[in-house]
């Protein structure tokens, strides 16, 4: 079933036209990868899905984005609600300068959850889902920055899970991590798609082919090709896609 649908989406930074008529449907409980060279618009597009571009001066968009049937750019949409539904994990691990526990609890606290038991349960559950619990259960009060980069990134995922989203956006979540930490994140993505819809931007083509069910190739602001990952990587219909995935440019 489709959960995200983009219809004729255009995006501009000032006069710079960065996305051209993007149309895409993303299925729920699956992993969709956005690939393409730097500056192709894939990050811009993923950040439109929870309206993180709203903070950029001069950003403007046309077209419609529906998530679970709702137009997320409608005036009456509450950004706080949208981001509860559509969580985000960023390129560089960015935990808050607080304890591990407080990092995960933050999303609950800002929603007015104050029951200690409830928060404790949600923190534990989220850390377990993010495959971090066994490593941090004895040091929940330690600063988040005492963790390794890979652990920090899983903490950021746990933090996102704590507010119970249905979609998780990941903007190059492993690009700042070593291969072992990357493998752990990829394993985690495979587990999470049972319950969540995951959209991931990646520069790493092997990663896209390993973790994703469907792949979208962006080039110069256009969605060039979109389909099953196995098809895109073995049998691309477009010449540009083929050149990119075979490493001839990018």
């Amino acid at each position, binding site marked *: 079933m489709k959960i995200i649908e983009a219809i004729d989406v255009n995006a501009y930074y000032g006069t710079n036209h960065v996305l051209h008529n993007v149309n895409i449907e993303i299925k729920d409980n699956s992993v969709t990868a956005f690939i393409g060279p730097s500056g192709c618009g894939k990050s811009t597009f993923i950040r439109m899905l*929870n309206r*993180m571009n709203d*903070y950029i*001066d001069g950003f403007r968009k046309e077209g419609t984005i529906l998530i679970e049937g709702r137009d997320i750019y409608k005036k009456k949409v509450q*950004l*706080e*609600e*949208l*981001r*509860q539904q559509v*969580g*985000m994990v*960023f390129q*560089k691990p*960015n*935990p*808050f*300068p*607080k*304890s591990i526990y407080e990092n995960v609890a*933050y*999303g609950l*606290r*800002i*929603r007015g959850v104050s029951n200690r038991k409830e928060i404790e349960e949600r923190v534990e559950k989220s850390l377990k889902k993010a495959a971090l619990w066994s490593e941090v259960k004895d040091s929940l009060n330690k*600063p*988040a*920055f*005492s963790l390794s980069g890979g652990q920090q990134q899983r903490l*950021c995922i746990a*933090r*996102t899970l704590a*507010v119970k989203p249905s979609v998780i956006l990941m903007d190059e979540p492993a690009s700042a991590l070593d291969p072992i930490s990357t493998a752990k994140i990829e394993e985690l993505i495979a587990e999470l798609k049972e319950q969540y819809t995951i959209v991931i931007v990646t520069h790493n083509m092997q990663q896209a082919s390993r973790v994703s069910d469907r792949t979208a190739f962006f080039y110069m602001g256009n969605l060039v090709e979109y389909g099953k990952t196995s098809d895109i990587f073995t049998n691309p219909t477009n010449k540009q896609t083929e050149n990119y995935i075979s490493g001839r440019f990018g």
Partner: protein
Amino acid sequence: MSSRAWNRIQDKAFHVVGLVFTFSALLILAVFLLDIIGEGWNRIDWNFLTSLPSRRAERAGILTAWTGTAWILGLTSLIAIPIGVAAGIYLEEYGKKNRFASAIEVNIANLAGVPSIIYGLLGLEIFGRILGLGGSLLTGALTLSLLILPVIIVATREALKAVPKTLREASYGLGATKWQTIWHQVLPASGGGILTGIILALSRAIGETAPLIVIGALAYVPYVPSSPMDEFTVMPMQIFNWISRPQHDFIVNGAAAIIILLIITFVMNGVAVYFRNRWQSKIHW
């Protein structure tokens, strides 16, 4: 001579020149301090701190001056810190970045450079005359607040600017509102910088004399102020008054008062550094 040897000599030479300049500045300060301490140190005792001013130098004390300074500092903090920090937050976080905003920005920077006596004249007219507050502590505190507001605003903005964008994104990404993000993440992360700016601004306020003379602070106040509407004097005015007298004993009093004023300033800065360090150790980067 090879060019490499020449480069090395240049490097050494700059090192020496820099050292000389740094130490000559420190030397002047040290000479000044030693001179003041030699002159006034023995004059400082409990009576000096707890006596009212007097015509006779040996009976005169700085009670009215330091209580006036404490009042002024307290009132100025109450007025200037909330307004300055709030204005800084608004301009940096909420204000639209357009030409009006950059005009405001330039003007705030300009205000920080306006001579303090001009603020005195403004305070005299608006607070003293139009609002009818006269030469009271409140007029003084309001005037000094105007004087240090630009410093607090600029320092607050710089501190907020230094907070990494990724921290804000993390908070927004979890569905926090702008205010929640500012309150729970941005302010704690920038608190040390804001605090430093506030202390610098207050240190400036503590030494200001010119605007207070203009609004009518008195050199001779025979009682300790007990409400914001009372007349007052402050340490710099007392010092100025004493050192302009011909008798040597009053000069000694002036030196002693300078030492007390310096101690107050150093203690304030020390407290600021202490709080800033504690703040930063609470934030675990």
